[in-house]
């Protein structure tokens, strides 16, 4: 399974998004605001999701800002940071 698709499923499951299917999400759609419409509280869930499933921390705010912009950038962030801890 592509990492992007895995992340889409995880986001939908962990954030308990109703009426959203993985295929509805485009890789480059924004996660917050326009697009999927996540908010600041969802960011709490995302941070924990990354720690729980990939053991990745998001301490660098600039990198987090970029990573949280879309599913594709989140996947890139996971690929780039996996196993670094």
């Amino acid at each position: 399974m592509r990492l992007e698709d895995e992340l889409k499923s995880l986001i939908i499951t962990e954030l308990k998004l109703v009426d959203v299917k993985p295929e509805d999400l485009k890789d480059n759609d924004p996660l917050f605001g326009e697009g999927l419409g996540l908010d600041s509280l969802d960011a709490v869930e995302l941070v924990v999701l990354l720690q729980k499933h990939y053991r990745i921390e998001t301490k660098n705010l600039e990198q987090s800002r970029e990573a949280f912009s879309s599913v594709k950038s989140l996947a890139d962030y996971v690929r780039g940071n996996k196993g670094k801890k």
Partner: protein
Amino acid sequence: MGMRDSFGKGHNPSAYGGKIGYGIFHLLIRLTGPVPAYLLLAFILPYYLLIRSSARKSTYYYLRHRFPDQGRIRRFLTSTCYMYQFGKVLIDQAAMGILDKNRFWVEFPGQENLYSMAQKKRGMVLLTTHAGNWQTAMSTMDNLETKVNLLFNISNHEGRHFFDLSGQRDRFHFIPPSGFLGGMVEATNALNAGEVVAIMGDRAWGAKTMEMEFLGGNAAFPITPYYLVAVTGADLIVLLTVRTGKLSFAIGVKYISNDQDWTQMPREEVVKTLLRRYVVYLEEYLEKNPYMWFNFFDFWSTNKKEDNIKNMEKGVKN
């Protein structure tokens, strides 16, 4: 005096007097201590009660809820006591930044227990409120070995004033609520690292709110602190202070969530449960200390208006 941000868009009793009044009080505290400043306060109070009546009226939002059966005369007298108490707290607050720390008496019975809880590194959300003197509670965090983060806008008046005067700005890491995703990424990371995150329980700052009955009316409270606990499993502690005399404060600790893991429960349920516990404790506190609530605006409608209407429509996720 400086608690301008306790007042939202309503009238602010402490904002009157301007820089000159502020300077006079500071000079008086520095030269003679707090007692002459209390006397000066008593001397100028009638002016604000009788002539600048908007200050007095701003106290009525709360007093109508706390003392719903009072008539006009009784309410006027209660408002006088209330404003005088508030003025004394502001003087003490300024004195904390100006005078030697040894001149203050802070009674904090649960201090050791709180410190040992923080040492467990489970992460701790420390909930404070514009009641009593929250800055006193923060000043006791000096001895905490764990890093303390404040979800707080340091550029606002009350924060800048206190933290600069008391030299405590460097002691804390400030997370601006207006920053990236409301500071939630930083706050979550801090809790996951076992640190302390202090949050004002009575300020939404544009974040989602939930309505809860408070002093006989529905008020909207921010849900951020409870949501953080629900997701990270951190502890949740409320600190409320009471002015007990001249330069003297007592700090009460309430363990809202201690060693409990809420992470597998529906978020909305957790948020409701924890918020209710906080509001019940707040009501108990105000029952005993009726003149310690320092939000001089219509707390029962403010968070429901403007951007929060949009936020509330989205609700809390399960």
